[in-house]
């Protein structure tokens, strides 16, 4: 079949794709203020297609707020450029249609709908009115592939509400895949998962990131070390450091504000 696959072969690498014209997300002077409190303070951030970027930082650093600002959930100033298109200031659903997808800290799936319906909805924002008024007779090839990738063919007809926590997170990733976004923003995707599930999710993230612009918020440093190709450290709303995991961990500033006592551990990384 000539249908494009959701997961072409490849590995993510720092700096992203080296061939062709990679897509990119270019964030300039992004600021978010809540009643005078600067939650995000002039953040500059570049993520290129093919890079698996992790966004780390202590609690309250403004990580989630950055994603909220990019996706239009909170008003922000500055600029967010997606491969030539300014997306800041647009409505949430418009930004999503421009190929920016996200997940949430607490998995938010449609609990009264089946896994299949969840994926079908995620795949369908481009459908015309006539298609919307018709019944869902066949399964979209992309949905089928996503079901396979997230390993949920067996529970496709089950209501999403009865899924285990980890499964809901996976369903969210599946929804992100079929949504056909080229910018993926994942907010703590492995929270509450078992060790095995984490490893599987990490592998999946690497496959996903090989062909997309991927930004993942994560607290678990072991996970970051294992799967990140590059890391940005945020503290008190500002970018503190950026580079490979090793570079960032060697950064004195990062050790001071974030890693603290684990600075020694960073040496052997």
């Amino acid at each position, binding site marked *: 079949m000539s249908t494009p696959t959701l997961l072409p072969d490849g590995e993510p690498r720092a700096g992203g794709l080296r061939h062709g014209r990679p897509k990119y997300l270019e964030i300039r002077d992004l600021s978010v203020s809540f009643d005078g409190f600067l939650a995000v303070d002039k953040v500059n951030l570049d993520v290129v297609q093919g890079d698996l970027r992790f966004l780390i930082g202590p609690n309250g650093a403004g990580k989630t707020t950055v994603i909220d600002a990019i*996706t239009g959930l909170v008003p922000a100033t500055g600029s967010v450029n997606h491969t030539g298109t300014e997306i800041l200031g647009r*409505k*949430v*659903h418009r930004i*999503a*249609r421009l190929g920016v*997808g*996200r997940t*949430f800290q607490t998995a*938010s799936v*449609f*609990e*009264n*709908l*089946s896994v*299949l*319906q*969840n994926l*079908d*909805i*995620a795949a*369908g*924002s*481009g*459908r015309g009115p006539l*298609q*919307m*008024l*018709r*019944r*869902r*007779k*066949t*399964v979209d090839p992309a949905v089928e592939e996503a079901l396979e990738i997230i390993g949920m*063919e*067996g529970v*496709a*007809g*089950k*209501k999403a509400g009865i899924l285990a926590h980890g499964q809901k997170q996976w369903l969210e990733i599946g*929804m992100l895949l079929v*949504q056909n976004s080229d910018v993926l923003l994942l907010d703590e995707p492995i929270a509450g998962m078992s060790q095995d599930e984490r490893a599987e999710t990490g592998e999946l993230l690497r496959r996903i990131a090989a062909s997309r612009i991927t930004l993942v918020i994560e607290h678990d440093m072991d996970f970051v070390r294992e799967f990140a190709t590059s890391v940005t450290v945020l503290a008190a709303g500002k970018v503190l450091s950026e580079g490979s995991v090793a570079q960032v961990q060697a950064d004195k500033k990062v050790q001071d504000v974030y890693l603290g006592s684990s600075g020694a551990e960073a040496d052997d990384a």
Partner: protein
Amino acid sequence: MKGLLQGRLGTAAGFAAAAVLLLVVAPAVLSAFNLGLLGKFLCFAIVAVGIGLAWGRGGMLTLGQGVFFGLGAYIMAMHMKLADASLFGGSGVPDFMSLYGSGQVPGWWEPFRSPAVTLLAVVLVPGLVALILGLAVFKRRVKGAYFAILSQALAAAFAVFLIGQQATTGGSNGLSGFRSFFGFDLQDPDNKVMLYMIAAAVLLLSVALARQLMHSRLGELLVAVRDQEERVRFLGYDPASIKTAIYVVAAVLAGIAGALFVPLVGIISPADVGVIPSIAFIIGVAIGGRATLLGPVLGAVGAAAAQSALSSTFPSFWVYFQGLLFVLVIGFMPGGLASLASMVGKRRRNRTARPLPSVPTPAAASASAPLTEGEASMPEEARR
């Protein structure tokens, strides 16, 4: 058995049975008076189908359906008044206008002399009002309780407005005393049966429409919007458009029901369109099961039948009963009678230990029993 009930064939058979019951059996066994009553209940059922979509599936508690019902009804009533005046009076001026007003037909009545304009307006005016209101409200993310209260205020204002316009809308008396319906004599029993038939056919059509909408992708999306409106935005949809579309459908159904109500019942007044009747539309839907297809229809007919049986003989008792219904059904059985039916069904299924279901195929996942009709049951309302 289950397969038969769930299949497309089962649906068609159920639909045919309902059609025979409503269009053949009922006219044959019911007296002319009772058939007229049933016709009136069917009008309420048409409104209920729309409320089931908007509220049960879409989570929009619309307490102002009386407005759309009233718009359809008054448009039809104005046409019938004008037609009567030309047919019987000769002057072309409805009787009450000479009584209370200047004896002149106001300009905004004139378009409704035309039967074609009237029929179009019955659909378009409620639809357009709902479209404007829906866009104004939903685009600005006014929802939940805010929407419910605004829609209720709309019903209140509409009734007050009608009462204030004695000379042009008949005030609190409303419009009544119709003699003809598009040239048909309303005294003729055959024509009364015909009116009933139209109402029954419209109800069947609106149920079919609601079924299609519920099972369409739009219907699935609607449930998603009901449960997690904000999440839907991040998938690239504008929830406001989806909600507005369904709100318009509900409004149009209410408008058509109102237009059928007038010739069947012979009167429309502010008492049929205000806050109280608007909420009364809701109770039938709640009793039957708000999120199901047939629950609202059966609930509306049942509630209306109970009202007409009890309210004249025991007026005081009826109000207590109605109040208790609200308290008991909404407070203790929010899924309505349909949830009772599905509970019984579940128990029975558990008893006849079925073999483990194989991996559900998409086709099986989208099919469902005609009564409970749906994978999307009760909403888990978020706090505000």
